[in-house]
């Protein structure tokens, strides 16, 4: 039963299985295990990013194409919900319309970009997506009537998801049963469903062809697979799932702006999560997103403390303080990223699986 749910793609490592169970249990009972607004937000962000990172891995890990436009699709999803709710007012119809329009836009856009650049030369794809994403970001901030520009959009969500909504008067296990809790579980089940669908996709015959193309596109072509078709399809799929992840994010935050869903920094975060977790394994997305967001949410505080402590030192301390200041978070991210790609290309999941395989006789 569980195996079928996981599309027979088992973790294949006891340690990995334990880690995954811990993460799933942690996320499933987060409102009860880690009460507090901040920790619930962190858990919700982890849920959204698991879907987003897994959808990116569909491209990078399973198909071997590098896209820098993934946040564009993420942003389209978030803006779709945000604009629909801001214009039409809170209601499930508006949510559905926003998601549908965003999905349609993403699918068309990814199809055109994919067909166009993947047909010409696979390496073009990275460059072209970079250019298109940058242009899109500029566009989003210029169409401020629609998108709220740099300030973004705040909006009301359907009543059932608002903190004011209450399921029961008495708190359950010390947690009040309100709309926030409902929102969280909406996110949880949506993310779980999307993740399982993606797991099914990569373990389907379609997914195996993608991997064959990644390993050797000449051979896959020789075997009669139209690599352009498969690559474009995986591109479209990845974009679709990213759009849905964006919609979930907007529903949770009740706000969307360029920095929450479109910025290049998020693109880097995604890359790092994929690499840390392990490219080419859906479970890598779970592990990578969880660890990364936990670190991002709590390590920056540590850096702030360290930076402040060093700031008291004279001269050399000043430079060190500049290096350790939380504003330089991205610097360390970049270094970590480069080192991970060099020394840790299989990521955590790859390592754990390799260790488990080596342990077996």
């Amino acid at each position, binding site marked *: 039963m569980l195996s079928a749910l996981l599309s027979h793609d088992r973790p294949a490592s006891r340690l990995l299985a334990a880690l995954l169970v811990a993460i799933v249990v942690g996320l499933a009972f987060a409102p009860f295990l880690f009460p507090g607004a901040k920790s619930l937000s962190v858990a919700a962000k982890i849920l959204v990013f698991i879907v987003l990172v897994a959808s990116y891995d569909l491209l*990078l890990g399973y198909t*071997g194409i*590098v896209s*820098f436009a993934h946040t564009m699709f993420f942003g389209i999803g978030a803006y779709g919900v945000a604009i629909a709710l801001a214009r039409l007012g809170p209601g499930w119809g508006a949510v559905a319309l926003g998601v549908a329009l965003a999905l349609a836009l993403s699918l068309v856009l990814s199809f055109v970009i994919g067909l*166009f650049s993947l*047909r*010409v*030369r*696979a*390496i*073009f794809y*990275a*460059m*072209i997506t*970079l*250019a*298109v994403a*940058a*242009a899109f970001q*500029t*566009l989003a901030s*210029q169409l401020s009537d629609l998108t709220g520009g740099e300030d973004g959009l705040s909006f009301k969500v359907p009543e059932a998801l608002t903190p004011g909504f209450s399921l029961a008067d008495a708190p359950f296990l010390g947690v009040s049963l309100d709309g926030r809790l409902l929102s969280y579980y909406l996110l949880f089940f949506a993310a779980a469903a999307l993740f399982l669908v993606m797991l099914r996709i990569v373990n389907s015959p379609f997914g195996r062809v993608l991997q064959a193309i990644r390993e050797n596109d000449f051979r896959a072509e020789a075997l009669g697979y139209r690599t352009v078709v498969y690559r474009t399809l995986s591109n479209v799929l990845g974009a679709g799932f990213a759009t849905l992840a964006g919609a979930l994010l907007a529903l949770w935050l009740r706000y969307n702006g360029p920095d929450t869903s479109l910025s*290049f920094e998020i693109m*880097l975060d995604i*890359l790092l999560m994929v*690499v840390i977790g392990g490219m080419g394994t859906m479970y890598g997305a779970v592990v990578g997103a969880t660890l990364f967001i936990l670190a991002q949410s709590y390590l920056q505080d540590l850096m702030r403390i360290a930076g402040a402590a060093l700031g008291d030192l004279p001269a050399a301390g000043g*430079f060190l303080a*500049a*290096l350790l200041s939380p*504003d*330089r978070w*991205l*610097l360390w*991210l*970049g*270094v970590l*990223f*480069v080192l991970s*790609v*060099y020394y840790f*290309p299989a990521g955590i999941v790859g390592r754990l699986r390799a260790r488990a395989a080596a342990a077996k006789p």
Partner: protein
Amino acid sequence: MEAPAVAPAPEALPKVRTDLLPLLLVPLLALAAAPLVGSFPTWVTLTVAGIAMGLIIFIIASGLTLVFGLMDVLNFGHGVFIALGAFLATTVLGGMADWTASQSLAANLAAIFAAMAVAMAVAGAVGMAFERVIIRPVYGQHLKQILITMGGMIVGEELIKVIWGPQAIPLPLPAALRGAILIGDAAVEKYRIVAVVIGLAVFAAIFWVLSRTKAGLLIRAGVQDREMVEALGYRIRRLFVGVFVAGSALAGLGGVMWGLYQQSVIPQIGAQVNILIFIVIIIGGLGSAGGSFVGALLVGLLANYAGFLAPKVALFSNILLMVLVLLWRPQGLYPVAKR
């Protein structure tokens, strides 16, 4: 040694045919824009600005396209050298305030050339380190290459923020280069003329090297058939490092010129220009220095015309140009013949 008696097969002398069509696109674009812009003086101003911008972009793009052609290395970190050059210019020109404040053109130019020399030297040196640390370990692995060089780009940009701070730094033009001169009714900014002259000089130098020196011949040969260059006894690795360092230095030079063109420098300048450069080298044909020249001029001109006619879609105009070019010639304007 006597020649054996062999009757050469009678064959017609093939005509030397050069493909000038893409080159014609540049004046065509300029002419097509004229009626849209409407006023002739405005058109002259925009065209000069476009050519100046195009030449600066070419200086930056030439190294990147050759690096790709020679070793199949696509360096997403090229922008670091642009930013480095631009920030070094703020430091050097700031330190030579007496020279830049002087009304003497000679003093002004001396200050600019000093900034360029420093930028090229430092960017070249950093390029050498970048090649060794970032690029060498991932030769032949495209996926990792893209990821690693992108990582290098981010680290470089952050280090620039650590050194120069994250905020924009003004980079005013030296006194004698400020303002515009009137050519007929058209106002043409003085610095743009300087940029055109320097750009053409660099263009001439690059093409002299590529067509008249042995190193240049080796680069052109290596872009086509790396193995054969090695089989002739040349170490292509060394050649590649040389091109990488020269390309980085040129990016540094371009960074100085771009910073002066914008008259202010932000740490994201590298990432911004990087996008233009990618469009240019795709349009030109990856590996073709001549193609990147045509592509850069097209992008520079179009950016200025579009910025004037429809500022909101200016960024998309370049993407549209790329799409049109690729529909016409899928491998770019001047595809490089590979084995």
